[in-house]
């Protein structure tokens, strides 16, 4: 439904963060649009004030007036108000995206190496897939991310933000796909010569398809 206007605005694309297909990416995309509108308004204000400085026949004021208006009013007051509001909404959004315990959470493991990914599944011990991550659609998935060699980053732009794969550490990222489908994944930390082609795919299954995958019936 939302795809048509998005396509007109040039938002769609296999790797587009502004064409979200899951709750985390949607929250962040909304945050982006709000910030964009705010930034355009602020930029317009500053540009207007700059242009107005070239007007002739302005009323002359003393330095004290200028200091009060420009530095205390706009510099301190205006900046702080905007930033406080933005910071609060950002922190709340961030808290919402944290991997909180939930009943139907699925656990998977992602290990990066130059230049491939291997994925393991808590619900199917021993099952390992290369460069394709299978998840159930409509359920939160916690991806435990680590690296076998250098620093990488796990990123599925249409589903969620990215999180680094760091040797010796395990980071957990919550992703979720609204609907079954295939979503492009990228390694997003420069890692040498194969970097540009270091990609993977996330396949989100419906409930039946997920069970079939766990039973080993799909590749």
């Amino acid at each position, binding site marked *: 439904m939302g795809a048509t206007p998005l396509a007109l605005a*040039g938002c769609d*694309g*296999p*790797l*587009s*963060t*502004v064409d979200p297909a899951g709750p985390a*990416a949607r*929250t*962040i995309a909304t*945050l*982006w649009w709000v*910030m964009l509108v705010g*930034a355009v308004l*602020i*930029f317009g204000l*500053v540009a207007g*004030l*700059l242009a*107005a*400085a070239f007007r002739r026949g302005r009323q002359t004021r003393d*330095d004290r007036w*200028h*200091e009060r208006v*420009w*530095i205390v009013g*706009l*510099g*301190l007051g205006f*900046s702080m108000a905007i*930033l406080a509001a*933005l*910071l609060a909404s*950002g922190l709340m*959004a*961030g*808290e919402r*995206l944290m991997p909180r315990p939930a009943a139907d959470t699925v656990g998977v493991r992602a290990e990066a190496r*130059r230049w491939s990914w291997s994925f393991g599944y808590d619900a199917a011990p021993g099952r390992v897939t290369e460069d394709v991550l299978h998840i159930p659609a409509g359920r939160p998935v916690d991806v435990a991310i680590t690296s076998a*060699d*250098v*620093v990488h*980053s796990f990123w599925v732009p249409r589903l*969620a*933000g*990215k*999180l*680094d794969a*760091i*040797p*010796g*550490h395990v980071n957990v990222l919550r992703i979720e796909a609204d609907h079954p489908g295939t979503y492009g994944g*990228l390694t*997003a*930390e*420069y890692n*040498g*010569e194969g*970097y*540009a082609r270091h990609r993977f795919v996330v396949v989100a299954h419906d409930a039946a398809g997920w069970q079939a995958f766990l039973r080993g019936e799909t590749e």
Partner: protein
Amino acid sequence: MNALRRHRKLTRVWASEPGWRGWFSTVNHTDVGRMFLATSFFFFLVGGVLAMLIRAQLATPDSAFVGPEVYNQLFTMHGTIMMFLFAIPTFEGLAIYLLPKMLGTRDLAFPRLTSYGYWCYFFGGGMMLFSLLFGIAPDGGWFMYPPLTGPLYSPGINTDFWLIGITFVEISAICAAVEFCVSILRYRAPGMSLDKMPIFAWYALVTSLMILTGFPPLILGSVLLEVERAFGLPFFQADLGGDSLLWQHLFWLFGHPEVYIIFLPAAGVISTVLPVMCRTTLLGYGWVVAAAVALAFLSFGLWVHHMFTTGIPHMGLAFFSAASTLVAVPTGVQVFAWIGTMWKGQPQLRLPMLHILGFFVTFVMGGLTGVMVAIVPFDWQAHDTAFVTAHLHYVLFGGFVFPILAGIYYWLPLFTGRKRFFRLGEWAFALIFVGFHGTFLAMHWVGLLGQRRRIETYDADAGWTAINFVSSVSGFIMAIGLAMVLIDVLLHWVVAVRGERNPWHAGSLEWVTMNPPPAYNFASLPHVDKREPLAGDPDLPVRLAKGEGYLGDPFVTWRETLTVEAASGRPDYLVIYPTNTRLPIALAAVTGLFFLSLLIKVYWLTPIAVFGVAALGWWWVWSQGRQSDLGPQDVGRGLSLPPSGETDRSPGWWGTAFLLAANATFFGSLIFGYAFLWTVAPAWPPPEWLEPSLLELGLGVGGVVAGSVGTRVAARGNRTGGAGSSGLLIGLAGTVVAAAALSTLMLRVPAPGGHAYGATLLVLAGYALFHALLTGLMQVFLIARIRRGYTSPRRRAEFPIVGLWADYLTVIVVLSLVVAHLPGMLG
């Protein structure tokens, strides 16, 4: 004596050697400043060519212009050159050239150090250029994350060029920062109290203090990574007790302040040029200074915002997110103070003003996207995409290149004494402005569509083709504009007609000098009683040229200036400068030999180079000073001041204090690294702790305390007419004992190649041992000075300097020994 004869006399004393030979022996700030600027703009050109190659590669999908092994060098070197070989040196060059003129004095505090810094930059930059020409340039990205840049995944020499070459270049930044701090605080015209200082000097002071505290973490990181690569001591390998995150912390502890180190000098240019363009004074001088200081403090609290995706707990991120948004407040204060300045005055659309408007538009947009990426969830999407590339170019090009271009066009008449003739500059500005926004505006969007930074190719069906093509074409338009600026400046320099003095009708002191300025700047030094001494006093240049200020006596044969008390601006003492010498270039060359021996792993050369540095350093210090008392000297206007060698707080003492501040940051970063690995790295605790030894601890602590006390006793002995060398001999013996204790510690460190714990202890003990040897050398030096009659109760300045080093040694040795022995004692 008339002004012309005075000029000739002073020129004879101050002039560099004629012709190109002068380049190698000059220590004059005007010369070295010009050399810095010429070299840094050469590197701007090189970095720009690399940028064009990057844009050529990305112009079309599936491009086969260069392969990844070349492309990776291109973007790594583009970032590295622009940051380390263009932006920082441009600030150094501009400040070296301008500061003494603005502050109303004749040179910077340490002229030979100015020159040494330049040659370190020149040789270090040459190393980087060499690697680029031969296709063995660094290719790990300009922030060089290990383990990718570690010995396992980057075995070639490429990474070593970065770690060693950039560390070499950073010496020049540290030298300049020390020198600026001392010069701004002490080398000003009499009467210029801190609140009357030109605003640019405030910005340069804040920037210099940031360099002193921001660069040491990176230097430490580079040393550790190079030691890991060359000698196998693990610091960043998770399975051996290291952690790659340590590098990220050290790098961004430097890297974020670095952004403000680049922006603040440019803001200083804006604060200086903008009011002149608007025929008024800067609105809210005190507020702007406070904002710059606040920015400096805050910028050290937000390095983690480059690490939002590394899995740090969300509450931790919240703190850094708050700090990152808060930093926009002092930036906002400055921007609105500038707009208020425009409203207060009558802005005129002359060429520098055009670039300032370019700055406003570009930098405000960069600031707004900066606030966006400071918001953690958004950064999770934007991080490492073209969005961030676009953001950082808006901040750095907007916040540095536009202001610097404004500054270049503003000070060009001062540099050359000519006025603009060809009107290429306006066209160039239009091309640069349009080209820049065409290159980078849509790049935000392509980042949100999923284009990562640092990829050398992309598929046609990704939907990025049109934007990349526009970016590339616009990039070439911008390049043409920048090339036109270069042509404009060269034409101006060569063919334009002579211009009037102070063409902008500015009020600051650099316009008091002749254009172009003579080697001595001012024939006599002004007495300053307001912030804009030239405003409303058009006769000031003539009066100073006639010798009516301080130090107007033209019969001296040495280069002299005077210093003031830091806050009040009351005259304090007389300074006699060293003259033309090739010592700086020789010392820089031997320093380069040291770095080169490490780079090409010819280790038998290393001790020879170290000995060479020590010998030249000895000569450097020895050639200063006198074997007889000079006593207070008449400096004109009825004032008489002692020479700097006959005071307790000489320029050398101040320089040492600032250098030790940087050094302490280095040491603090090392302790931070130790604590960080202990608490965060996976493979801890280590298999075994160091066997504690009370004897070693006692000898080490006792030794450095004796070293400190002995040096103090010597200083007191000298002041009361005694010899002073007996105290120094006790001090030297103490230092030697401490060095022995540290050597045994280094030998006893368990398995330095097997675990980060042992590796860290080895570096810690090595650092302390190095300082013990250095302090011992200084104590020997001072004993030799006493024996040769270079000291007297009056000539006492060298004692407190050695005292500072001995005290610093005490602190670091005690701390190092305690953190080395404590775990074994407790465990």
